[in-house]
């Protein structure tokens, strides 16, 4: 659904921005893993594609609020970063398919890189409600780019932090620490969000440990609702056939082992409808 949300508070979270927006309807329908899209630039803007944003927190206050986390990447997100309390935002959501949650109280490792970590906090809330054990593994290039370390420490059994420059926690990437975290926590399942390369490596580790891994991908989108067909990635279906599927509509959450990470940005030759695989012309 589309709502005009009012910005309640804005804050900087290290290198990132967070906006809490009153968005009744979106907040109450939100499930962990859902995202929202926001129009940027105001009414007469020249920026016509929406920005897909991660939901970090959902609260019932004021009829329902969502906290959106993003990093400034261009003029659209720069405009968002300039929003102040009482400004209004055009939001559409909740969008995408949420994370599937286990029925049993299993051990879960939540792996987040950069601001992708934000989406894991509603997941952690839901897992804790179900009596699951939650352990966080968060990383980033430097200390200011590790999102949510404080909140993770409050929620989780253990929290492991990694930075590539060694300024916080262990030096390295989240995937360097992942094998020992999985082993120490006797994890049954991994939830992950972050850049594609991180998700690829996280999935490889989970496969090695033979435990399921659910990943939320961050792919560039124009619409977020499944009509523009620009956010596609190659994913293997239940029938074993690879299809170019929309990260917004079929995702953003996928079983990690189903995503052909090495082939993201290409059309694999064996994908359904790949050039030469039946399509008779290139258009």
């Amino acid at each position, binding site marked *: *659904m*589309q709502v005009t949300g009012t910005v309640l508070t804005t804050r900087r979270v290290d290198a990132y921005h967070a906006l809490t927006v009153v968005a009744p309807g979106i907040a109450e329908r939100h499930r962990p893993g859902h995202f929202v899209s926001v*129009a940027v630039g105001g009414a007469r803007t*020249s*920026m*016509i*594609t*929406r920005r897909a944003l991660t939901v970090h927190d959902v609260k019932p206050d004021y009829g329902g609020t969502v906290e959106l986390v993003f990093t400034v990447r261009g003029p*659209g997100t720069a405009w968002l970063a300039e929003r102040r309390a009482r400004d209004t935002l*055009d939001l*559409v959501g909740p969008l995408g398919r949420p994370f599937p949650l286990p029925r049993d109280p299993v051990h879960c490792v939540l792996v987040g890189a950069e601001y992708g970590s934000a989406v894991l906090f509603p997941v952690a809330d839901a897992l804790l409600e179900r009596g699951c054990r939650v352990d966080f593994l968060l990383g980033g290039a430097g200390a200011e780019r590790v999102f949510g370390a404080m909140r993770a420490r409050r929620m989780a059994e253990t929290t492991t932090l990694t930075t590539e420059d060694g300024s916080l926690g262990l030096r390295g990437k989240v995937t360097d620490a992942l094998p020992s975290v999985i082993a120490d926590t006797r994890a049954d399942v991994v939830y992950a969000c972050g850049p594609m390369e991180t998700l690829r490596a996280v999935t490889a580790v989970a496969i090695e440990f033979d435990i399921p891994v659910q990943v939320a991908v961050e*792919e*560039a*989108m*124009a*619409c977020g*609702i*499944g*009509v*523009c*067909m*620009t*956010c*596609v*990635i190659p994913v293997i279906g239940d029938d074993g056939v690879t*299809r*170019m599927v929309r990260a917004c*509509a079929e995702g953003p959450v996928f079983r990690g082992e189903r995503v052909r990470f090495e082939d*993201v*940005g*290409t*059309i694999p030759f064996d*994908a*359904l*409808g*790949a*050039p030469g*695989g*039946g*399509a*008779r*012309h*290139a*258009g």
Partner: protein
Amino acid sequence: MSVDMRTFLAHVELANPITTAAGCASSGRELAQFFDLHRLGALATRSITMAPRAGRPTPRMAETPSGMLNAVGLQGPGIDAFLERELPWLAQRGIRTIVSIGGGTVAEYSELARRLADAPGVTALEVNLSCPNIEDRGRVFAREGSAAAEVIASVRSIMRYDVPVVAKLAPDVADIVSVARACVDAGADALSMINNPLGMAIDTEALRPALAAVTGGLSGPAVLPLAVRCVWQVHAALPGVPLIGVGGVMTGRDAFQLILAGACAVGVGTALFHDPYACLRIERELEDLLEARGFQRLADAVGLAHRPPGSAPRHLLVDSEESSP
């Protein structure tokens, strides 16, 4: 007083002039989450091809000033899956559906028409002529009147007489009027314009083209003036031919421009990416604009901007008629 928004695409009546633009509504189900698709004049499908198509590699999209580039490459399910899953879903709900088709040869378009000829639920058939002709070194059919006419003539001869065949024209051609005339002479019942003109953007960080396919179709408000010009020129040359104006329509006022230029229906595409409710909003805004100017029927506004210089603005005429005792 409300405005009579009904319009005719050849002999097919649409409840209102606002349709989705081909390729911008996916299968229809996506938008149905937001609003009742019956409120559209018609829903245009993505261009259906014979075989399933995986489309182009990503990145497929780049935002540009007041627009965006896309290089999706007609990703779609292919005609079999379309007839099995997508068209029946629309047909069962009685949603007016303009089926768009795309092919690489005349034979492929013809085969698609054959498959669709007996399918229930096809309100009109739109022929996407901006596909590369593999028998002509990949030049798109829409570039040349004769190539476009060959496709239209074949499709027209196959489709049932009561299903209008609409030729979708490209703006980046030497003479759109001659292509339009060739399509009409070949039997096109209506014309739709414009398809995306080709554009390109370069990523100044990566120092290479922003799209994996290098070039892509430009859409959004940036192309509205191009659409208005094309509709104007074609309506001037072929005033009796129904036109679907498409290109960068974001507001009712944009749609009104295309109507005044000669379109009897208006396709909304990129606006849907920005606002899932765009079609409904634009229809309402258009109705308000017509009402404010004293129009009782949408049909009275079609092509009105072509009236000779010096003639009175129509709404004043209506007002004086109404106020005279």
